[in-house]
């Protein structure tokens, strides 16, 4: 089985983000970038399937500027086999990303695509479902457990009230939720090996797809700051405040 894992380079989840002076975007200059955490879980799951003898090859794909190659190498160090870098300086929307991924799935004869359920920058949570739609494949979103037996996949997924189990046939799309696994740290020998793995670079304009964005960002702003910080002395004062001042109990 061939697995495709798309990875996105995003602002590291530990960084406190800032809106730029023009109010047009979040500042990404001189900010630490990392692989989207949900994508790390996707890479880890693919590597485990390879270790279990279920997958033969793991292809890593990333869309973005030159920096995206660093993210592909991070996935290599975890166990990815080879990479595709779709080169563009533009921000690509989920529908465009899904169309690009479809091209790669078809060209490479991929059986399973494992994606992070959302990227922690734009929080869209769309790409996996869109890719499933345009490939006409079944989708197992927000997965917390995978069981693969031949052509059958059993997916336990996180839903609002608890868990749900679906069974689908390969080819399929899986998107990862937090509890699916805990991604490994790359070892030094694997980081060294990752440097020699192959990345093929493709310019986005060479793909025969419509890459025009449909959404225009008119403005980016900081959310209203919450004024807090008041302390109460004891339980009695707390109850009094909640009853009389806030009127919430």
């Amino acid at each position, binding site marked *: 089985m061939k697995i495709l894992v798309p990875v996105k380079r995003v602002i590291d989840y530990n960084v406190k983000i800032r809106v730029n002076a023009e109010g047009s975007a979040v500042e990404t200059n001189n900010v630490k970038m990392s692989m989207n955490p949900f994508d790390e879980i996707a890479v880890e799951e693919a590597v485990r399937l390879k270790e279990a003898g279920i997958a033969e090859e793991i292809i890593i794909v990333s869309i973005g500027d030159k920096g995206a190659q660093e993210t592909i190498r991070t996935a290599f160090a975890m166990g990815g086999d080879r990479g595709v870098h779709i080169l563009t300086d533009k921000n690509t929307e989920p529908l465009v990303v899904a169309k690009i991924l479809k091209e790669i799935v078809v060209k490479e004869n991929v059986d399973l695509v494992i994606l992070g359920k959302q990227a922690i920058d734009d929080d869209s*949570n769309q790409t996996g479902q869109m890719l499933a739609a345009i490939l006409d494949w079944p989708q197992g979103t927000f997965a917390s457990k995978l069981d693969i037996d031949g052509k059958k996949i059993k997916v336990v997924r*996180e*839903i*609002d009230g608890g868990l749900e189990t679906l069974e689908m046939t390969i080819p399929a799309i899986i998107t990862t939720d937090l509890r699916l696994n805990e991604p490994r740290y790359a070892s030094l020998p694997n980081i060294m090996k990752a440097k020699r793995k192959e990345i093929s670079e493709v310019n986005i304009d060479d793909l025969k797809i419509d890459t025009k964005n449909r959404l225009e960002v008119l403005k980016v702003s900081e959310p209203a700051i919450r004024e807090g910080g008041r*302390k109460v002395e004891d339980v009695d004062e707390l109850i009094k405040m*909640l009853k009389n001042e806030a009127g919430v109990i």
Partner: protein
Amino acid sequence: MAVLVIAESNGKTIDRGTLSAISAAMKIDDSVDLIIFDESQEVVNFAKKISGLKKVIFCKGALEGTLAENISPVVVDLSQNYSHILSSAGTFGKNIMPRIAALCDSQQISDISDIINEDTFVRPIYAGNALATIKSSDDKKFITVRATAFQAADINTGQAESEEGPKVEQYGKIEFSGRELSKSDRPELTAAKIVVSGGRGMGSGENFAILDSLADKLGAAVGASRAAVDAGYVPNDYQVGQTGKVVAPELYIAIGISGAIQHLAGMKDSKVIVAINKDEEAPIFQIADFGLVGDLFKIIPELTEKLD
């Protein structure tokens, strides 16, 4: 043109998030229809009474699980009659809407928190640490709605007509095989007026019992920080935060929670926030309306006892 809202239902009633999506739809256009994938007459009757709805379309054959693969083609067909298709941004809407949008070659707008006009919306990005105002150039707009940002539509005064929609066909390559829902008599986390949440400071899963007593006294839902979920104290569907649920109750009581950015992203829009923590430097106190420094194992039983 009219707006179509996709309902999330459970055989008995319509989800609270759907009621918020209906309110959002009414800000876009006066003419709002609801589509339900549920065999239950009780759900259809409930839906007909939601204020402001013109028409309730109910479709049979969706079966348990309401799979995206099965229902998407029905919504795609019906979408010809609508300018906007909305659902709430819970796991149900997040799962189905992008599939429908992509089939219509439209770039979905996720998790909107405000509506500027029929093609311009505000949505949180970076876990709510920034707000983006977005204008869509698509002819037809597919949108998920952040439930906490819109009031629930009123459920008693409506007089919608109902009609049977197309039957749902089975996609075939996927099957629903079961659900394990957390059993609780308490209100659902995202719909509760009061939420009591515990963090790593709770120390163990057993200790969550003292939060249960407090929650029962207040009629509250029980939540948790990601740290408490990662430590295995409670299941993941308790999780409030960037990677869990977003809540905005009247009262949020954070107990033994330090206040990581990841947690604040899920609760900072609550009307009143109370923090109880033994570490007076904990960041949660900076955003709490009322902070109480001390040992939660003494404070919580005392609070539970003194509430009447």
